[in-house]
């Protein structure tokens, strides 16, 4: 409809992913390659024999981000491009005014907003799922794998209750927060390190200072 809508939705949906990319990946070319190749980076692992745990976590994070971005983009980009389009939803040349009055407009807006926020939460969820999943595979914690799978199915199933966007979004966000906390602890964080990070007392925990490969 308008450029404002386009940019607004784009940044809501992809802003965190873009920020994650810029701050953690863009500076390290190897991570960019992992992002693009994704699963194929299993092969690249073999050329990095010295690295053990840190690079696995990095791999998990980057793979999760890659999957998340791809799924988010595929789900959302057509809506984005439509929002840049002519804005007349009536294909038979009805005036927009008519359409506004007909009451369908708010639904389109709600739909688009729902899509935006769903895309955002899906991207973040993929990142967290990636971390937890890789860790579960590595430590052979099958329960972790099962939970990841089940929550994935749960989130998808929640989207089936289609017009009730509110419940859908809120529950998905709650799941995302839970997954995020779990992934944080899986990746080696702790309450203490979180405190240090927030108070900027311990530079080692700031991600972009990590020189892991």
């Amino acid at each position, binding site marked *: 409809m308008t450029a404002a809508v386009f940019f607004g939705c784009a940044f809501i949906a992809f802003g965190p992913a873009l920020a994650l990319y810029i701050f953690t990946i863009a500076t*390290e*070319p*190897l991570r*960019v*390659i992992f992002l*693009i*190749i994704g699963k*194929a980076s299993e092969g690249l692992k073999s*050329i*990095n024999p*010295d690295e053990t745990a840190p690079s696995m976590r990095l791999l998990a994070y980057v793979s999760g981000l890659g999957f998340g971005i*791809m799924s988010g*983009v*595929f*789900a959302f*980009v*057509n*809506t984005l*491009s439509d929002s840049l389009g002519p804005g007349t939803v009536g294909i038979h040349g009805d005036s927009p005014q008519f359409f506004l009055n007909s009451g369908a407009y708010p639904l389109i807006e709600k*739909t688009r907003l*729902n*899509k935006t926020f*769903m895309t955002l939460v*899906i991207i973040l969820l993929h990142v967290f799922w990636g971390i937890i999943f890789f860790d579960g595979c590595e430590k052979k914690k099958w329960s972790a794998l099962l939970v990841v799978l089940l929550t994935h199915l749960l*989130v*998808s199933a929640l*989207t*089936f209750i*289609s017009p009730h966007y509110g419940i859908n979004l809120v529950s998905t966000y709650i799941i995302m927060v839970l997954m995020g906390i779990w992934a944080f602890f899986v990746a080696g964080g702790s309450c203490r390190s979180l405190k240090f990070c927030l108070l900027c007392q311990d530079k080692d925990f700031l991600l972009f200072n990590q020189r892991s*490969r």
Partner: protein
Amino acid sequence: MLTFMASDSEEEVCDERTSLMSAESPPPRCCQEARQGLEDGENAAQWRSQDSEEDLDDADRYVCSGVPGQPLGLEEELTLKYGAKHVIMLFVPVTLCMIVVVATIKSVRFYTEKNGQLIYTPFTEDTPSVGQRLLNSVLNTLIMISVIVAMTIFLVVLYKYRCYKFIHGWLIMSSLMLLFLFTYIYLGEVLKTYNVAMDYPTLFLTVWNFGAVGMVCIHWKGPLVLQQAYLIMISALMALVFIKYLPEWSAWVILGAISVYDLVAVLCPKGPLRMLVETAQERNEPIFPALIYSSAMVWTVGMAKLDPSSQGALQLPYDPEMEEDSYDSFGEPSYPEVFEPPLPGSPEGELEEEEERGVKLGLGDFIFYSVLVGKAAATGSGDWNTTLACFVAILIGLCLTLLLLAVFKKALPALPISITFGLIFYFSTDNLVRPFMDTLASHQLYI
């Protein structure tokens, strides 16, 4: 085709290879050639540009590392980092070229309108039956490929008989056409699309400046970034011409056939490009830089001679006059390397002479990548999903090709893997994934 630009520190090369395969010492034959190949210090590769008008070939120099038995840890790290950096150095221009092409296709309607065909593809696709259409597209492809093969062989013959002036004139003519005529048309169409009025004097001034600076940058000397930008722009312009004038099915068949031809021409012993490369190697000459994208930035520096950090973005001047005695080809590390002995690789020594090695990619590869993505954007009814899938496919292919380049250390065709992935992704996304995603999206379902 993909080329590494040599670094002189061969043990890095050795480790790059060994780090990817296994920790073996390189065969002694490599060491011999390494000594010979020191003058230009260029890591061999051929690359080829696929222009519709001409084919270029590059000198092939084989560089192998000389010194085995290095501590593998740090050097592996460095070579992996360098290898990854090369990949990114090529991701960016390829992505930029594709973005320019896709943005133009999506906004300027001129390039998606059918306004006739090139003489290279005389058979029409406006036929009543599917079989006839398929036949016509195959015939178009055969004609196009034969034209390209003929041009390549002509170029090889010219090069073999040292008709450098002719080749140089040919290159200048074609860049003139790209930089002036195609730019003028492109600018006209963009202005029409956005309904911006521009008077003829302004237009003349703009096109003249753009074209003149482009000619200077590409064929003579100029800042590296500007030269890269111009090469990207002319690749995009050429790709747009192809997208506009190649009929639908012919374009896809041509893409497939070009990849096969690239594979054959670069790798077969009697392939024209390989012969060209070997000829250039015997004469120790670089080949025409006007149609190669090079990502190298700074010189290699001698051991503790110069501070690498002070080099910044020094541009090696390119001497276009192909005198046989003095060659200073663009972007290649030059003479300081000649006097450099192969290093025993202490880590400090390596870092000190840490040069920016670069990778070279032929402009034809840029063009055909962009043609694939542009065609996906123009005709794929799945809009952005298909385009993005093809884009990712090409990047994956490029990454794998660069990996192979690091492994084999010789010129490799850059088209086959990427185009194969691109074609697979295009057809599967357009026919399988798109209806699925459309249905999901219309019901707001997420999987």
